[in-house]
């Protein structure tokens, strides 16, 4: 049965991921952490990838920089950037030039991403020199960015990382990712390590900066709220596979995959009956317990059918610019209550 994917609107695609499979070697066997991922990331938009921990999202991000750490390795696929090409085919100097420059990353624990023995400004200049940018000009740009993020630029740039708070360090991480004006920015749970107040601040900064500079962003998160606030598009990952993707309003209001639906339903609202929030029973599979045959989600699915045991359902169109990988073929609303 040939699955038909939705026709995408004709915006430029900044990054095109095809057939990406990343496996980890555990005790002499390979387990896929990311399997058969196809994803287009349109230019100038924020695309979110949401999933629980262990869903493979960080591995996906690392793969996008061709930086999967052993014991993991890229098994198949391509990650093609419109401006520079397939990063998975790059190595050496070409790869290094791409990282931090054309494609940059904001790490989950940016607080630990800074050299404890060098001042921030010095590290900015190191970054500039590594990519052939003028250090002074880059420092100016850094000052500018710091200001935008309500950081005292002079103070921050002359400080060591231990003199800054966690929230400040996270913002420095963002600044370092944006200072060379990259085409694509990968944000791996940029606010998870922060307290709630800083989280909302940083999210706002990210939204404003993205609207201003129109860089392409891939936002990795486990928080539906963050998706709702920031993302133009969202892809849902479970057990290393994309199970649903589309424009955020569509996916959030009419999810067509039981997992997406369950994620949304499990969020308690501030008002109303708490029992309306329905937690999803069971645990996500660990790397070695992902089912090899059949739909990866079937163990926890309320709508499980015999066909689900046969093969992982392919992604297929369930609406305009909206795909889901489920044998319900987009009829979830009818099945659900």
């Amino acid at each position, binding site marked *: 049965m040939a699955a038909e994917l939705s026709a995408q609107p004709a915006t430029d695609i900044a990054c095109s991921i095809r057939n990406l499979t990343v496996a980890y070697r555990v005790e002499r066997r390979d387990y896929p952490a990311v399997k058969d991922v196809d994803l287009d990331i349109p230019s100038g938009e924020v695309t979110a990838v949401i999933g629980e921990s262990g869903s493979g999202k960080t591995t996906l991000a690392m793969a996008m920089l061709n930086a999967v750490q052993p014991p993991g390795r890229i098994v198949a696929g391509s990650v093609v950037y419109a401006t520079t090409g397939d990063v998975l085919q790059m190595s050496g100097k070409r790869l290094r030039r791409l990282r931090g420059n054309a494609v940059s990353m904001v790490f989950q624990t940016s607080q630990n991403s800074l050299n404890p023995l060098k001042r921030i400004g010095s590290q900015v200049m190191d970054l500039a020199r590594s990519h052939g940018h003028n250090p002074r000009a880059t420092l100016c740009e850094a000052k500018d960015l710091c200001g935008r993020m309500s950081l005292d630029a002079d103070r921050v740039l002359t400080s060591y990382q231990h003199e800054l708070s966690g929230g400040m360090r996270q913002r420095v991480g963002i600044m370092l990712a944006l200072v060379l004006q990259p085409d694509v920015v990968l944000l791996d749970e940029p606010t998870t390590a922060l307290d709630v107040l800083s989280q909302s601040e940083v999210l706002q900064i990210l939204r404003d900066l993205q609207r201003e500079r129109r860089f392409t962003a891939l936002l990795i998160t486990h928080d539906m709220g963050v998706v709702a606030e920031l993302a133009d598009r969202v892809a849902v990952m479970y057990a290393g596979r994309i199970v649903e993707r589309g424009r955020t309003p569509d996916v959030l209001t009419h999810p067509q995959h039981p997992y997406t639906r369950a994620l949304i339903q499990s969020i308690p609202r501030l008002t109303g009956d708490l029992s309306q929030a329905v937690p999803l*029973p*069971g*645990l*996500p*599979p*660990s790397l070695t*317990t992902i*089912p090899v045959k059949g739909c990866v989600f079937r*163990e*926890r*699915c*309320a*709508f*499980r*059918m*015999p066909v689900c045991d046969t093969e992982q359902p392919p992604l297929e169109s369930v609406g305009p610019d909206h795909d889901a990988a489920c044998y319900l073929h987009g009829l979830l609303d009818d*099945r*659900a*209550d």
Partner: protein
Amino acid sequence: MNTIVSEEPQALSTYPSAPRRRPSAWMVAWDVLRRRPTGILGLVILLFFIGMATVGPLFYPAELPTDPLHTFAAPSAAHPLGTDFEGTDVLALIVTGSRYVLLSAFLAGFFTALFGTVSGLISGYYLGVPDSIITKLADFVLTIPSFPLLVVLSTVWKFGSPLSMGLVLGIIGWGALARAIRSQVLTLRERTFVEAARGLGFSSVHIIVKEIFPNITSYVAMKFLLAVTGAIYAAVALFFLGVLPFAANNWGVMLQFAFTQAGAMYTTQSLLYLLAPLASILLVTLGVVLFLDALDEMLNPRLRKG
């Protein structure tokens, strides 16, 4: 309500497997030794030398025979390790010399562990004034270089006997252990089981002895073994320097004679005489280190790869 669901979601491969039965200490020990055969080797070496020290000297007369006609003889059936400058069998010298070395090192390790643990426990638990005093004392002892201090002490007290050697080395060496124990106690005393014990009204002494100490026994045991190796060097070194009078033979005395008897240093035939005590010290140390590695893995669950 949907009717398509045929069965309840099942707990299959998606759920983590049930925890295994916790293995007993002996099983763990055996497991580790199997994976690290060097641990067995270490244990064998240790037992060999302990045996040598305890029963070995019984096979030899109190006064070892000299043989002036065969000084620095090459190894032979009668003298597997050759002879020394007086013609005495080197193997006999090693065996008779082992008792002093191992005994004094064992005692030194014991006293170091004793002083270090007690002071570490007191200073870590009570804090305040006792802590300051003990820490300052430990720092003082740690700063002064040990060997010059030992040499100076030898003028005041000839600590040649195994017991006095053990005591003196314990007094010199307790500092580092005290510090380490102190930091362990500092973390332990904040743990809830200590709080619970305090809440139940147990006395401080009881808490220290019954609650905290059992948690550091493995650490102390390992430090004890390390102290023994250090003490072997120290004892041998002190006798080598010639600052202590000796009643009986020991490896350090052998080295001292080797160095000062003008013949020994200048002839290649005395190589075995020189090497024998050196090699013995190295072997004992090797045994301890190998065994310690395995012991560490046995006692420290985090090192074991499950």
